[in-house]
């Protein structure tokens, strides 16, 4: 079976190269796993980078407690199949201990609270490299991010003073207490990720595909009414619609889109023709033009 020439997929090849640099340059890397399509793609790339050895670092999920149950079930199963360690840290613990305060009101979200839990976990385990699935095409502050992005003791991103990153040389030198955020799929677009999932036949949580769900509409966006997490006014009417999710962040800030895309081929087609960006369905970005940059400065993913 080995009479073939391996075709180069530049994006895949680059991502694998980055994973190998992480393992060679850092002592305690971790893959930040959200259960979303980007982190699932990362896991597949990590598998490819080290095969036939196992993925040589743990996965870590910062659980807001507001995740779709499908995502959690998927997360646990994937970790088991791969035989890698899964670390879960809960935002709820910080809320219970009073370290962070839960937002209230109709736009309440635990998205921001994740940062504190993440920074605690980095310190607890002494992680020096946190691998994430952020892509530059997601948002315009993300478009400025390096592949190896240095964070200080407080997890802060010094956006005006980033290290030059030339050719494919990655400078992972840091001081004690600092850590590096690593983004192997920086140069992928949303469509690249979906095409890859299709091409590789990667399993993803069911909420990415069109399904019937009880929803309500607010500010032109569609919210899940199935659960207690998203605050709903009495006068906001519950409807049943065919919807899917384009990102699976915290339920409280992830809106659904109307869709008939019941399988991966249809999803790819839908993304290709879409006139709304992926983050258009994230209420946390709509808070202000600088929302993402601010969150990143504070140590967000």
């Amino acid at each position: 079976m080995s009479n073939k020439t391996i075709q180069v997929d530049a994006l895949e090849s680059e991502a694998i190269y980055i994973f190998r640099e992480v393992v060679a340059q850092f002592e305690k890397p971790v893959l930040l796993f959200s259960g979303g399509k980007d982190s699932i793609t990362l896991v597949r790339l990590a598998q490819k980078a080290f095969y036939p050895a196992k993925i040589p670092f743990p996965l870590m999920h910062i659980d807001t407690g507001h995740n779709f149950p499908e995502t959690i079930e998927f997360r646990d199963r994937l970790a088991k199949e791969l035989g890698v360690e899964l670390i879960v840290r809960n935002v709820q613990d910080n809320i219970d201990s009073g370290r962070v305060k839960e937002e209230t009101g109709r736009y309440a979200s635990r998205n921001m609270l994740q940062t504190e839990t993440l920074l605690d976990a980095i310190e607890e385990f002494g992680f020096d490299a946190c691998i994430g699935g952020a892509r530059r095409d997601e948002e315009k502050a993300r478009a400025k991010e390096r592949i190896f992005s240095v964070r200080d003791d407080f997890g802060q991103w010094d956006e005006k003073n980033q290290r030059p990153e030339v050719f494919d040389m990655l400078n992972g030198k840091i001081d004690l207490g600092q850590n590096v955020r690593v983004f192997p799929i920086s140069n992928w677009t949303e469509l690249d990720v979906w095409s890859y999932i299709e091409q590789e036949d990667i399993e993803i949580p069911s909420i990415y595909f069109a399904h019937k769900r009880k929803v309500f509409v607010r500010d032109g966006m569609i919210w899940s009414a199935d659960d207690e997490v998203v605050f709903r006014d009495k006068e906001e009417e519950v409807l049943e619609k065919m919807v899917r999710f384009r990102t699976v962040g915290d339920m409280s800030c992830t809106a659904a889109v109307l869709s008939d895309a019941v399988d991966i081929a249809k999803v790819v087609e839908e993304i290709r023709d879409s006139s709304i960006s992926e983050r258009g369905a994230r209420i946390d970005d709509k808070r202000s033009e600088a929302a993402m940059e601010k969150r990143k400065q504070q140590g967000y993913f």
Partner: protein
Amino acid sequence: MANSEQLIKMKVLKIATAGSVDDGKSTLIGRILYDTKSLTDDKLEAIEEKSRQRGFDYLDFSLATDGLVAEREQGITIDVAHIYFSTPSKSFIIADTPGHIEYTRNMVTGASTAQASIVLIDARNGVIEQTYRHFFINNLLRIKDVVIAVNKMDLVDFSEEKFNAIKKEIEFIASKSGYRGQNLTFIPMSALQGDNVVHKSENTPWYKGETLMHHLEKLEPEDISEISQARFPVQTVIRPKTEQYHDFRGYAGKIYGGDLSVGDEVAVLPSQTKSKIKTINFFDKEFETAKRGSSVTITLEDNVNVSRGDMLVKVNEEPTIAKQLDATICWMDKEPLKASQKYYIKHGVNDAQAKITKLSSIINTDFSGIEENPSELVLNQIGDIQLKLSKPLLVDSYSDNKSNGSFILIDSKTNSTVGVGFIK
């Protein structure tokens, strides 16, 4: 499994922009996105609203790429942004780079991986110092396709004379450059109004060439490493130590320059041990040949000692084993470079200590010559140096192999990347 169509789709043309502050780089990229219908409705709405808020009677397309608060406040680009879009025939990554001299290092970051570059010039101001510098850096990086976009033609009545004068001046400095392989293309345009960006302009009947997009669509994407001899720097050694793969010992890395095949006789450098390629593995499959640009895992016939930083090459295609380097360096730090200083050097995946043994010259980026025996090289200056290395590195000249002919210097106190070098 992937079919060939999908793999071709994944090929992307990487483009960098260059040019002085306010020459219109960010505006041009926004315009390209707009005219190729790559801006999604929500992003376009945001631009329309912000432009209105600021009292503009036009759409400020630079808002599409200037992603930092400080950038929008000052109306300049500070750091490089990578922008992705595609047309029916091709995918593109454009680096929107800053024009301000203080941020030249970020311009180098954006340009280092580009296969093509667009140098913008404000038609009113013509060729100025920063144009020279960016043009020089493009040549130093040996970027093959360079478009000179003479922008803001709307502000000079779309004057053919103005355009020709700028063209003549660039052609003159290009003739003084040491890099001969370059294709230069000149296009008159208005990024703001869209003339000759994606749509042909009616304001320039005298211009017979193509629009910018038309030109870019014709360029061939290629790997950053040009075709040369194969280089396989080992990133890490894969030893599963499971029952099934008990004796598996794979060398993981990315191939640069040329292809490698099973059965190739290879030398392991720097030890110079010889062996043969036994298998080329990619995930759970084995392949006969791997092309340059692919990240693979290689096993050898013999049980030789190979570790990170070692390099596999075909026998008789060895690179130079150097304990000393002659290089051109682009300095990117506030602390100047001085002779006798020590740095970390990172060459591909290999590290060593390096001492600057000689700072021979500063190269004037306006192509007017060199300044010999300077005492230091300051931020954004380019010069020739000699380095002594703590251990041998396996190098090619930059003109033979970009990846294996470049390096970075790292300050051991700050851990910052302070310079990028091009081996002679």
